[in-house]
């Protein structure tokens, strides 16, 4: 069963440095095959979420939109976990939303 979600990456470092490592570790906890696409910069490239190198190569910066696609037994749990991680800022303090 395939599950997917589109997310806005809002934390200051994007998917680099420590946040990227957190993302990879979180993905590694699931059996599903998980891929990430950087919709803003590289819409044709899908990187395996369990590879730090492949993720870094996507160049996801703060403000980019990504799609996370998972396939396999625990795919829905994987997508939910990664969504929660990204939306909570991947361990970084998030700037307030533009309205404030």
């Amino acid at each position: 069963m395939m599950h997917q979600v589109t997310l806005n990456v809002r934390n200051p470092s994007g998917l680099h440095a420590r946040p990227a490592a957190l993302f990879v570790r979180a993905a590694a906890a699931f059996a599903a095959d998980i891929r990430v696409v950087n919709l803003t910069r590289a819409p044709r490239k899908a990187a395996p979420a369990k590879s730090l190198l492949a993720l870094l190569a996507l160049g996801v910066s703060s403000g980019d939109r990504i799609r996370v696609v998972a396939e396999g037994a625990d795919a829905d749990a994987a997508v939910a976990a990664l969504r929660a991680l990204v939306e909570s800022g991947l361990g970084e303090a998030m700037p307030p939303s533009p309205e404030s």
Partner: protein
Amino acid sequence: MRVLGGVSAAPGAAIGAPWIYRAPSSRGEDRLDLREATKAAEAELVALADRLRHAGRAEDAGILDAQALMAHDPELIGGARRRMRDGAAASAAILAEGEAQAAALSALDNEIVAARAVDVRDVAQRIARAIRGDVGPRLERPSVAVAADLPPSVTVELDQELLLGIALEAGSPTAHAAILARALGIPAVVGVAGLLDAASDANSLGVDGTGGAVTIDPDGAARERLEAVLAEQRERRAADAQLRATPLATRDGHRITLLANVGRPDEAVSAATAGAEGIGLFRTEFMFMGRSSAPTVAAQAEAYFAALAPFVGRPVVIRTLDVGGDKQLPYLAQEPEGNPFLGLRAIRLAEHNRELLVAQLRAILKAAARSKAETWIMAPMVADLGDVALVRALLAEAAVDRDDSARQPRVGIMVELPAAAVLADQLAGAVDFFSIGTNDLTQYLLAADRTNPSLAQRQDPMHPAVLRSVRTVVRAGRMAHIPVAVCGEMAGDPVGAVTLAGLGVDELSMDPGSFGAVKRALGAVTQVEAERIAARACDARSAADARRMVADLVLESAAGGSSHD
């Protein structure tokens, strides 16, 4: 003996046995298989990261955490296995794949990502070492590390007690090895052509990090020169370290709080390292200059938070925007003024630019709520209680949708207008602190333009009119039990600092570069001596007379302190 030139990357001098790091070659036997080797490499990196974290080196630990992830990265390992299926030996395969991944990352537009190329190459080398059963890099005796380039994980792995200096044939002053050398206080030279060849036969190497040269097998004279540089550096470091650890106080132990003046958030960190007990003046103009539109609240809050971060539990005084008609800010509603220094500037911007000031206060409150520092807000150009009421009204507007009334920042004023000095007794009851801006106070009191060099004689804050004004402000502060600081240049001038201490000022805020000189000057006199000389200076006939009498006291006391009691 030979001298090779390079680029200076970290100052100082060292002489030691060369220790050469070379990337593992693929000659000879592989001992471990790829799987075993990656597990070993990962374990090494995890252990190293933990060690660094415990030593308080969180950033270096973070780099190694990422490398530990790379050690079992599917791209890296998968690529190596493909090469092995094509016939390559494991060590050759991992090195080649590491190189390929590094090249792919370097080719990307994104600078931050490209910097990670260094890390994947580093990890591949570590795995290759494990495959070959090579002994990990370690120093056996005090050494100068030599390499084409030192991988980050190797640099942090080396025993710092034995690492005397670093010399690289390639590398740049921004390489991780150079950054580490500066942090460790050891010399480093990079870009030394011919280094590896020359060093492989050498018995000892001299590294001149300040001049940017490496001496192969220095002879007697060269050794003496290097040793002299080294000795002088050691003495200076020891003296600086001792001074940094000494609080600002008179000879008989009367303490004055030492604060820093900073103009950008990153200066806050170095101020803390230099021994500042807080920030007495954080100038916020940097956020507003050089832009075509006003900065957002969010961007301001991030910057202010960064300045607060190094000072847990300590005061950080943030001064609200102090610009006016003399600075062309395109987004300021301004009318042309004949005399912008006496015009609608600083807090007076509320006249036509109220929202700008409210937005800044909003950002300061946001940053303060997130921070463990004590945020103090300071308004410049305040003349009277009407101005104080204006500041409080703006702050109330900024706080309107916030519910963190529990941690209200303290609100104080810069005392720089003569009116504020005259009315200090009124103002002291209405604010939480005073900070005397002696630069502008001197300018306004003596009607001497700070920017006019022919008036230099008339711009000395040691003028008795200024000293008496400070005395008045201090007295008012004492009566109202609020702290009085000085953040003008006078605080960082040894003669000025001693005078201010004698006038009863509680806190001195200055550029951190002046910390040492001020500590030495104040430490030379007793509080009673400072008070006596300050009182006499208030009755001097000129700034020059006042300055001379205080300077004489400081010099005498420094020369023969024990005779003054």
